[in-house]
């Protein structure tokens, strides 16, 4: 086995952790889930900062933890780098001394090697600065340089972008992708943001209430979520209802709170109907029915949020849903809170999963 294997059961304050995860090869994976799902705990278990019982952590044939055999390597004995959410830079040490802290090898050329490492992340000129004088983005790069300074086989990143403001986040995210590709370490990123996970990782583990509920690529999770939870997380609109056989071999879903949908998925009983926001188009309230889209819901506009050249339109059916349209459509449809429009999408774009 060439990758990382983690099996752990652990009792947390208000959570029963029961995780099995197997990562083959290199590259990067993400553990994504809401806060309190136990994601950071998994990282702490891998790093040796927390000991689950029973637990097993094996990295490239090296057993780091095996509670059954009484093996438990100390954190300093595991070739594992951990970047904390708040970066945890040592406040009393300059940037280069932070990076040099974990560096093996002779003392005399440590500064040179630390500078080299800082240069990789474009922050060499900050070598003598203390962490409290650095910006969030600079701190993140110093922390990344530090966690890679020992050349770890596994790099754990706990919410690497969460401490940054929204404007730096996108840029820092792209840089992080680049940095992760440049290392030999297997990277495990923990985040609560699905799009961040999609950007940073090749494969995603979705975690909820202490368990891994689904794994796959971002595209797989979006297209074939096995639960409404994963669908919601992957950015789908989730509408709850009850499915029963409909006309023409389709499934009809009576939505809770009113409204009817059609889907090509064949399933019965309580379901979550899933559709991507960009599959939903909006038409004026009283427009004639003139498209192949079977699903038509009368909805009220709740919010309009412009993101560059597109906009997210918050709607109420009365169940909440979101449509993504171009900025041009806001004008042509006079979309503003309180407006009444019709949301339409195709039955073939409607996924049904049991609830």
């Amino acid at each position, binding site marked *: 086995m060439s990758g990382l294997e983690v099996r752990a059961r652990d009792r947390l304050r208000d959570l029963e952790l029961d995780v099995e995860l197997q990562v083959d090869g290199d590259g990067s994976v993400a553990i994504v889930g809401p806060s309190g799902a136990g994601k950071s705990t998994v990282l*702490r278990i891998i*790093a*040796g*900062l927390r000991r689950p019982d029973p637990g097993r952590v094996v990295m490239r044939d090296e057993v780091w933890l095996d509670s059954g055999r009484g093996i438990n390597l*100390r*954190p*300093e004995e*595991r070739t*594992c*780098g*951990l970047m*904390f959410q*708040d970066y*945890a*830079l*040592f*406040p*009393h*040490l300059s940037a280069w001394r932070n990076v040099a*802290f*974990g560096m*093996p090898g002779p003392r005399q050329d440590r500064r040179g090697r630390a500078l080299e490492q800082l240069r990789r992340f474009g922050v060499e000129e900050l070598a003598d600065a*203390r962490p*409290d004088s650095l910006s969030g983005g600079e701190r993140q790069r110093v922390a990344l340089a*530090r*966690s890679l*300074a*020992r050349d770890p086989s596994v790099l754990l990143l706990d919410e690497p972008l969460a401490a940054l403001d929204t404007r730096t986040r996108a840029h820092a995210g792209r840089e992080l992708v680049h940095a992760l590709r440049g290392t030999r370490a297997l990277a495990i990123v923990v985040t609560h943001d699905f799009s961040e996970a999609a950007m940073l990782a090749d494969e995603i583990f979705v975690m909820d209430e202490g368990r891994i509920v689904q794994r796959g690529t971002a595209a797989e999770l979006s297209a074939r979520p096995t639960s409404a939870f994963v669908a919601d997380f992957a950015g789908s609109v989730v509408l709850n209802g009850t499915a029963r056989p409909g006309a023409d071999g389709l499934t009809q879903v009576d939505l809770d709170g009113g409204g009817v949908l059609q889907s090509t998925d064949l399933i019965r009983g309580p379901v979550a109907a899933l559709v991507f926001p960009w599959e939903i188009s909006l038409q004026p309230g009283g427009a004639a029915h003139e498209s192949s889209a079977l699903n038509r819901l009368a909805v009220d506009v709740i919010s309009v949020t412009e993101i560059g050249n597109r906009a997210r339109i918050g709607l109420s059916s009365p169940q909440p849903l979101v449509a993504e349209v171009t900025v041009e459509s806001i004008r042509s449809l006079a979309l503003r809170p309180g407006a009444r429009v019709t949301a339409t999408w195709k039955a073939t774009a409607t996924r049904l999963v049991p609830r």
Partner: protein
Amino acid sequence: MRRAAFAVGLFLALFLVLAFLTLPIVAIFVHTSPGDLISSLGEQDARDALWLSLKTSVAALAIIVIVGTPAAYLLATREFRGRSVVVTLIELPLVLPPAVAGIALLASFGPEGLFGSALDDAGIQLVLQTAGVIVALTFVAAPFYLRQAQEAFAAVDRNLMDAARTLGATEARAFIRVAVPSAGQGIASGIALAWGRALGEFGATLMFAGSFQGITQTVPLAIFARFSDDFTAALALSGLLVIVSAALLLSVKVLGRSPILGGGAP
């Protein structure tokens, strides 16, 4: 109007506190000319007392810091049964009257005390000896340091220690390289408090070690010895002690904020 009255009240309270606490110190220097201070240094017994005070307080402080720092770290970072009992026992000397502390030391380390014969067998003499002064100072000053250091260690971000471990540091190295510097400012103010308490120690020293010039007569004891027959000389020595104490405390505080001790400067 009522808000203004409240603000005035606050300032009045602060003024009263300040006046009451500083006036007596100001009075010492009103009665003592700089010439008196210098001439008091010229006297052998004053020089002996000052030198002894410095020697014994530094020795006591060294013992307190070397043994107390790891102990405070343990108390701050580990949960164990009876921890709060231990903390209370350690803080007990804080509320002990100095006379009681002196008696307690005699009862344990004196010739007739609990460990008296054991110490005697080991050839260790404490009572009426300089070593006895150090024991007394350590006993009364240690809790001040332990309290501050414990608080400072408890405030150190756990993530910093965890980060050090994942960067290859053993627990001991993380303690020395991360916990101690991060707690630097709290440790420095603990040292300042303990040092101040040790320099001012009077009752326990007098009862346990006596007042012999050059051997156990620290500055406070020398002041008391002069007090009955030469008030001016006692005043001058007091002024000297105020200056020395203030200078020591100030330098420790400044050092705690500097990068050398690693106090996280803002």
